[in-house]
C-alpha cells in the first residue's frame, strides 16, 4: 500500500475538544503502523490484527501501572483500539505513531481518572495508612513491595505518573513527552523527578524496616 503524504495532516483532538499537537512542519517517515492504518482505512481488517498484536501489551502495561487494576487496563486498552479503528481514515503521520496512540490513551486515562477521582482519593488514603506487613500476610516479599509501590504510584498526580511511565516504559525523550503533554521539557523533568523521588522514599522506608 502506498502512503500519500499530500493529504491534510491529522492532529489528534482530545476528548475535551482541544487540539493536542501543533502542526509539525516535517513529515515523519511512514512507519509500519501508518501503513497498517491506511490498510484498515481501506477496509483490510487483518491489518487491525497486526496493530493490536503489536501494541496491546505496551498499552495494557501503561494502563495497568497507572490505574493499578486489570479490569480498567483491559477496558481502556480496548477503548483505545476502538478509537484508533474509528479514526484510521483520518490518521496522517505528522508525528510518530506511538505519539498519536498514547495521546488517545492518555485522553482516555484522564477521563477515567476524573471519573474515579473522588472515590480513589478517599480509598487510597485509607488503604495506604492501613497497609502494614500484617495486612499483606500470605504474599511474597516482592508482591508486597509491588503492591505498596502501586499505591504510591497511584497517589501521584496523573501528569507525573504518565510522564514517568512514558519515560520508563516507552523510553521517550523528555521533548517527546513534553510535546504529548503540551508542557515545557523542564516541567516534564520536574514531574518525573518528583514521581521517582516518591517511589524512592517509600523504597528506602521499606529497606530500613527490613521488608526488602
Amino acid at each position: 500500500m502506498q502512503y500519500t503524504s499530500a493529504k491534510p495532516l491529522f492532529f489528534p483532538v482530545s476528548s475535551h475538544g482541544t487540539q493536542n499537537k501543533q502542526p509539525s512542519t516535517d513529515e515523519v517517515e511512514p512507519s509500519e503502523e501508518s501503513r497498517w492504518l491506511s490498510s484498515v482505512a481501506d477496509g483490510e481488517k487483518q491489518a487491525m490484527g497486526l496493530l493490536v498484536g503489536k501494541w496491546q501489551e505496551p498499552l495494557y502495561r501503561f494502563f495497568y501501572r497507572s490505574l493499578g487494576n486489570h479490569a480498567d487496563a483491559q477496558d481502556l486498552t480496548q477503548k483505545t483500539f476502538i478509537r484508533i479503528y474509528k479514526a484510521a481514515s483520518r490518521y496522517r503521520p505528522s508525528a510518530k505513531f506511538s505519539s498519536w496512540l498514547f495521546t488517545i490513551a492518555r485522553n482516555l486515562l484522564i477521563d477515567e481518572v476524573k471519573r474515579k477521582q473522588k472515590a480513589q482519593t478517599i480509598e487510597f488514603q485509607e488503604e495506604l495508612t492501613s497497609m502494614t506487613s500484617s495486612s499483606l500476610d500470605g504474599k511474597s516479599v516482592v508482591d508486597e513491595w509491588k503492591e505498596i509501590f502501586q499505591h504510591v504510584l497511584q497517589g501521584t498526580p496523573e501528569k507525573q505518573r504518565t510522564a514517568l511511565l512514558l519515560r520508563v516504559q516507552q523510553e521517550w525523550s523528555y521533548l517527546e513527552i513534553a510535546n504529548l503533554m503540551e508542557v515545557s521539557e523542564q516541567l516534564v523533568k520536574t514531574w518525573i523527578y518528583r514521581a521517582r523521588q516518591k517511589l524512592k522514599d517509600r523504597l528506602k522506608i521499606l529497606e530500613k524496616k527490613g521488608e526488602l
Partner: protein
Amino acid sequence: MSDQLDEKIDKFLKAVDVEIKEPISATTIIAIAENRRFSKRARYTFWSTSLAIAACLLFLFFVMQSKDESLPSDSVALVPSSILSDRDRVLLEDVMFFSNEFDQSTVLLDDETFDLFVMLQPLEE
C-alpha cells in the same frame, strides 16, 4: 545505592511480568466499533424521524385550529330545515318575507312626519 533503587523502580514501572488477562482480538474491536457506529446511526434516525412526525402533528394541529376559527359563529346555530314541520317552515318563510319588506320601506322625511301627525290628530270640538 541510588542506582540500585532506580533499577528496582524501573523494573517495577516497566511491568514486564504483567500479562494481559484476556488478549484483545481485532475482530472484537471491529465488531464493537461497527456496532457503536450502527447504534449511533440508528439513534440519529430515530430522533430525526420522531422530530419530523412531531413537526407534522403540530402543523396539522395548527391547521385544524385555524380552520375552526375561520368558520362563521352563527353557522353552528343554524337549525337544519329537516327538523321543521311543513307548517312551521311556511310560517318561517313568511316571517322572512315580511322582514325583507320592512327592510325596503322608505324613511319618512321630518316635515312629512309632522304633517302626518297633524292629520291624525283628532279634531278638537
